């Protein structure tokens, strides 16, 4: 009960934050009604998806300070579970999505147990490795279509099909992912004020101190990693129904893992709004860069160059990202 209340309680934010967040929420709710291009709609859906990936990453990576560069493997597990179950046995999204979460969380325990014995960069590298191994496995596994991937053909199903989450119009996908987005915010808002949230921040501050206060550091990290995994896997399942064509490369590649981490870090790791701000900056940037500079000017890969510059800027100037700058300015004003 207390947890539920705390999820809806935003009173520790300044009034300005709440009014900005409220305005953004209203805009997001009304966006499909406003005049927009199909490209803008697709970009908005991407933005919402990556915001949720970022929120998940933020629990372990931001509040817990464990830089995870392997989140894409869970996008893959979620996406493949949903696609395989739908194509082979016609099992709808609302069953396959929770099942995908179960698989993803089980996998996260299996690799999280040994991985969290590692620290810092070693941990980050190990997460990359497990993700790449899984991607390679899926690339040769015939049952899931190997490197060709899987295709959900929409003609087979009536549209709109809420049960299977197969729609012809993007507006339906938009509202589904928007509701996940709001639920995600509420969850993280409750999480950051929960016992586990505090324990995790204490672990990031000083692990020895955390242990001396009775915190099972290893287990707290594994638990939070599982939470982050669930977030990513849910959107992965959504990805399968929305994109309808999944391949190992575009669900589990290193690019996606890095983009997820980068967004959260750019916006502000360890803050509620950070991943959303990061996604709001990077996703349109990514779409437009690809559309204009990549395809039109023949500068393929320019987006990667820009990510690299952003990573360097964050680590050199403000490790806590855009939100870190906002908080610094506020603190200065208060004095």
């Amino acid at each position, binding site marked *: 009960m207390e947890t539920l209340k705390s999820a809806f309680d935003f009173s520790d934010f300044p009034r300005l934050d709440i009014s900005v967040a409220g305005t953004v929420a209203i805009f997001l709710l009304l966006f499909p009604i406003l005049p927009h291009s199909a490209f803008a709609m697709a970009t908005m859906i991407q933005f919402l998806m990556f915001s949720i990936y970022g929120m998940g990453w933020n629990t372990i990576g931001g509040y817990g300070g464990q830089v995870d560069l392997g989140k894409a493997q869970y996008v893959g597990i979620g996406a493949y579970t949903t696609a395989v179950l739908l194509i082979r046995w016609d099992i709808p999204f609302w069953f396959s999505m929770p099942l995908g979460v179960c698989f993803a969380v089980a996998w996260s325990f299996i690799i999280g147990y040994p991985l969290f014995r590692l620290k810092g960069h070693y941990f980050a590298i190990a997460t990359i490795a497990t993700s790449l191994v899984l991607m390679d496995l899926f690339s040769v596994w015939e049952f899931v279509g190997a490197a060709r991937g899987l295709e959900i053909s929409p003609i087979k199903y009536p549209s709109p099909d809420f049960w299977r989450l197969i729609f012809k119009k993007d507006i339906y996908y938009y509202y589904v992912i928007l509701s996940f987005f709001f639920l995600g915010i509420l969850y993280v808002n409750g999480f950051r004020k929960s016992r586990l949230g*505090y324990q995790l921040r204490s672990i990031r501050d000083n692990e020895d101190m955390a242990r001396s*206060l009775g915190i*099972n550091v290893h287990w707290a990290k594994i638990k939070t990693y599982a939470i982050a995994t669930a977030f990513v896997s849910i959107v992965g399942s959504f990805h399968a129904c929305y994109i309808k064509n999944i391949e190992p490369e575009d669900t589990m590649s290193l690019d996606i893992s890095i983009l997820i981490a980068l967004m959260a870090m750019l916006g502000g790791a360890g803050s509620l709004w950070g991943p959303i701000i990061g996604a709001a900056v990077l996703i349109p940037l990514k779409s437009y860069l690809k559309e204009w500079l990549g395809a039109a000017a023949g500068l393929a890969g320019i987006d990667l160059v820009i990510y690299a510059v952003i990573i360097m800027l964050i680590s050199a100037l403000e490790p806590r990202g855009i939100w870190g700058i906002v908080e610094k300015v506020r603190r200065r004003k208060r004095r």
Partner: protein
Amino acid sequence: MALLEVLNLTKNFGGLSANQDISFSVQKEELVGLIGPNGAGKTTLFNCISGFHPVSSGKIIFNGEDITSLNAHEIARRGLARTFQIYAASGDLTVKENVMVGCFMRTRSRGKAEARAEEILKDFNLADLGDAAVSELPVAAQKRVTMAAALGSGPKLLLLDEVAAGLTSNEIEEIMKNIRHIHIDMGITVMLIEHVMELVMKVSDRVMVLDYGRKIADGAPRMVAKDPEVIKAYLGERFVQEHKEILI
């Protein structure tokens, strides 16, 4: 029955023996000072007792239970709390949040943890600093925060590692008050490592001395201060030989 019993504890780091065959016990509601020159093995002893180092041999019994092979967090949950010599605050937890983390060991409820943390901060005269980031505070206040956080976990025995090192005499007064409060008003058993003799001698019921990893003295503060072995450890053999007349 003793609250803490250490039996023939030995801790080796490679060829170096940091603790050698140390045995002692701490009674309930006692305040035991642990002194010794730098490198005597005091902090190592604390690390072994609180589960941060595995012991090489020996046994540690806390509250009637053998805790020798338990993990640090398991020992903490049994009511044995500790502070650290150096508080390396890198993050952004505020003073109150730090104490709340301690309180969360005994409760899941945020409301309860917060209320308890506020109570402790008031006792420690830190209530005004509740919303400050720990890393922004002066060292003296940081040390008091770590004590407050350890208390939040509701310990039976509290190990304090050099809480007064590097502080001014006013700050030492303040910390001494805090320690007395913990020991006398709250009835918590305390063991403290300290170089500030003024503090150890005043507050301790009993003082133990380590030198080169061995226990060389254990007794009332006055007796220990006069012990030739202890003076030798601090001032060297030659000093004792040359000043025999003053010392006896």
